């Protein structure tokens, strides 16, 4: 028997909730609390995963070669540049571009404190990264020991955006060499990377004397328009020896995120926070629904006496759970809208409230409220219709 046909024409569920305004507000707040907590946890987690692939997202190419030993952006795992040259012969390939990267201590020009900086090297005439303003400034890196600096790097590097904007040349030490900053670009930080700089291959090899020429870190492959990147990736992977791994850009992004998900406690930490939020919210909703049922037990027993089935009464509590979930979710999402902006500002993380996250959290809120409702319903079963005649 359908819920609405039995309980209509009077929305008992709603009237019963609205009767106790304070209790209703507490229940909605309970759901809101859980929704905010879960949304923030998911937001931070997604932002951390998203930040790990900022560079990957900006790669100007469709297929990527890396070493099978590549773990994450920040630990160099070089492979032979010749593998990238081999790829050129494939008819769908329009061009290739090598990328080098490594990490060296950067000396804060004001405090002298050293901090690890990711140094990326690309061909000065052929930028393999879509970053605003990079193409026209990249030529400056032909000058020895000249770098472009990521203006979204952490402030501890002592390179303020104001100085970068002023166009003043900034001098400090990177590794064992004296370097000059002559311009900037915007990339941003991640778990592994506090800041980055871009230079040309010759400066890179001078900065890292133990790096051998002819060994690169990422090989970017550009395809002709209309080429199927999955098919080309498979063909290249079949042609090339097993000392390189061939990925599509999306596959490279997935590989990087999988590394962080599988090799760090990030996933666990955030899942734990989410579960705690859901448990606390669920308990609050349970208490409210339970008290609602317990207080109206004689009325529920009366309804049973006049022929309402347990199912119809379950329907009433289920509707209450639904109302609480919807109300708490709405308030929670509105709150998070502001909190995301504040958090993004404070952490420099790319916090984004997506429809997918929202849908997931709504399902979780619904699940939480229904579970609590189901628990409260055990009490409805206890409403003995015969007791009203006692």
């Amino acid at each position, binding site marked *: 028997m359908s819920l609405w046909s039995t309980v*209509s024409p009077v929305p*008992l569920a709603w009237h*019963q909730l*609205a009767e106790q305004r304070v209790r209703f507000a507490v229940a909605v707040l309970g759901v809101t609390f859980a929704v905010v907590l879960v949304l923030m946890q998911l937001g931070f987690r997604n932002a951390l995963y998203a930040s790990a692939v900022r560079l990957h997202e900006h790669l100007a190419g469709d297929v990527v070669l890396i070493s099978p030993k590549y773990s994450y952006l920040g630990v160099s795992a070089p492979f032979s540049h010749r593998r990238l040259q081999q790829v050129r012969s494939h008819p769908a390939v329009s061009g290739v571009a090598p990328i080098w990267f490594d990490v060296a201590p950067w000396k804060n020009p004001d405090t002298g404190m050293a901090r690890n900086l990711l140094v990326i090297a690309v061909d000065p005439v052929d930028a393999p990264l879509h970053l605003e303003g990079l193409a026209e400034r990249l030529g400056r890196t032909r000058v020895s020991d000249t770098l472009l600096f990521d203006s979204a790097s952490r402030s501890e590097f002592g390179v303020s955006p104001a100085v970068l904007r002023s166009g003043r040349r900034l001098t400090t030490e990177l590794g064992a060499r004296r370097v000059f900053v002559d311009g900037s670009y915007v990339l941003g930080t991640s778990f592994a990377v506090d800041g980055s700089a871009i230079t040309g291959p010759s400066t890179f090899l001078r900065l890292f004397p133990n790096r051998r020429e002819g060994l690169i870190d990422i090989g970017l492959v550009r395809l002709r328009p209309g080429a199927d990147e999955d098919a080309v990736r498979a063909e290249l992977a079949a042609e090339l020896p097993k000392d390189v791994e061939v990925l599509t850009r999306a596959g490279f992004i997935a590989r990087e995120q999988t590394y962080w998900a599988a090799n760090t406690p990030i996933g666990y930490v955030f899942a734990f926070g989410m579960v705690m939020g859901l448990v606390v919210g669920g308990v609050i909703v349970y208490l409210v629904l339970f008290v609602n049922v317990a207080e109206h037990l004689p009325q529920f027993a*009366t309804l049973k006496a*006049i*022929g309402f*089935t347990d199912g119809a009464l379950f329907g009433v509590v289920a509707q209450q759970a639904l109302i609480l979930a919807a109300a708490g979710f709405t308030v929670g999402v509105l709150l998070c809208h502001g909190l995301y902006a504040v958090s993004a500002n404070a952490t420099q993380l790319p916090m984004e409230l997506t429809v997918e996250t929202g849908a997931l959290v709504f399902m979780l809120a619904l699940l939480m409220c229904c579970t609590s409702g189901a628990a409260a319903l055990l009490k409805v079963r206890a409403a003995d219709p015969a007791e*009203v005649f006692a």
Partner: protein
Amino acid sequence: MIEIERVNHYYGPSSMRRQVLFDVSATVAGGEIVLLTGPSGSGKSTLLSLIGALRSAQQGSLRVLGEELCGASADTLIRVRRQVGYIFQKHNLFDCLTALQNVELCLGLHGAQRSTARRRATEVLDAVGLAAYLDRYPYQLSGGQQQRVAIARALAPRPRLILADEPTAALDSVSGGEVAERIRELAKQEGCAAVVVTHDQRILRIADRILDMEDGRLQASEVRRLAA
């Protein structure tokens, strides 16, 4: 309408079983108003809850509205309950719903459309003299008015049988008499039978017949037909 034959009923687990009804037999015909009286603990309410399909009968035969309730399934019990109008000592109205909504809620159970339910609920509340109180909440009504809402709720789905348990116990003599009169009037008007458990001497006059219970046994039934 109701045929009770040699019904026994027990409470408690087998080791501490206590018999509350002994060999009860009686019949109630359609349209008849029967009062069930007797001291408290005599088994009146138990008998009423058995007739009303609120408990399953254990021994004997109990036919209500054509259904055998002895050993009946939960579905059968619910089916019978839906054809019975109940009036309780405590009205058990929802405080969060108005008088009209309380009656409508009950009609909704019987699958009535919103507009039909509203019309019928208004009509029945009018019949119990509450036309001016449709949108009042139960706590805004007097005890007698609350009980009249409960009567309207019981009668709205046009039951073939009304069961009432001490419907006037919580009321003063004036509103008690009025409530009893309403039950009689509406039962006669709708042509349904009524079984009313009561201690209240003041309402005996509404009865077609009075059954006396003592210690779980039905005494030789005393017939006091009233001049209509």
